[in-house]
């Protein structure tokens, strides 16, 4: 401890004043219980997750042949999006149609 400063007497006093303190017995037990509860809980969660997803399911997820369904889903989604665009375009065109009808009506009402 002498590399700290050059006062061995004060350093000895400090060492005596700041002695290590033993933790209470029940703290060690309580902490150990808490930590083992956490570990068991984590193990149980890992186990139930593994039960939900079996090895064959995990294998199936990795198999490119099973990617057809997601690809099909993407294709269906794209088609649906295209259809929505068409409907939108028709909706945007509707005011023109109304104007045509109004002009026709006015033409009909106009005195000959």
């Amino acid at each position: 401890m002498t590399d700290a400063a050059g006062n061995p007497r004060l350093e000895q006093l400090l060492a005596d004043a700041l002695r290590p303190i033993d933790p209470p017995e029940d703290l060690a037990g309580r902490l150990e219980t808490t930590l083992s509860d956490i570990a068991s809980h984590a193990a149980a969660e890992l186990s139930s997750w593994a039960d939900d997803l079996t090895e064959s399911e995990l294998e199936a997820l990795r198999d490119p042949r099973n990617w057809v369904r997601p690809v099909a889903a993407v294709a269906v989604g794209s088609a649906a999006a295209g259809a929505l665009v068409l409907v939108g375009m028709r909706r945007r065109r509707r005011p023109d149609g109304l104007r045509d009808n109004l002009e026709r009506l006015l033409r009909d009402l106009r005195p000959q």
Partner: protein
Amino acid sequence: MSAEAEPGSGQEPVSAAGKAELDRAFSELYRTHLRDVYSYAYYRVGNHHDAEDLTEQAFLQAYRHFERARRESNGRPLRPWLIRIAHNLASNYYRDRARRPEANIEAIEPPMHPHGTERVVEGREELREVIDKLQDLPDDRREALIMRFALGMSNREIARALGRSDGATKVLIHRAIKQLEEAIEAEHAGPEAT
């Protein structure tokens, strides 16, 4: 079922066997350093009740990050890391609850010594004086002395716990002892000397 690691994520999954080994290693760390963390906590907060809380929180936090800490430590001792956790928690303790260490540390009683009665009384007065003067030091100086003398940490360990360089830590400890020495001398010289 060891999954592939995502580089740099720090959250790589571990296998069941790896987890068991990790728990065993943590258990060892906990048993080896429980007294260190508790001593540090006690000298920081000054009472057993809060020291227990602080110790418990420190180990729970350490448990959460243990795998990463072990990986990044490259085999170096983990005591400075544990003490750093306790140090941060103790800082939050004062900040959150607006408590000051001065109020608590006065309650710390000097330890008993197996000497004769007269020497015990005299010795206890001296130790009481050291503890009293210790509380007047700036936080970082006081902490460095707690780490050095209560935990027996080396300069390098203290540097790692405080996030400072080895050289800066050496200077910090030197100044802490010097300041303590001067405070005690001033006390003995009497009020006319100050």
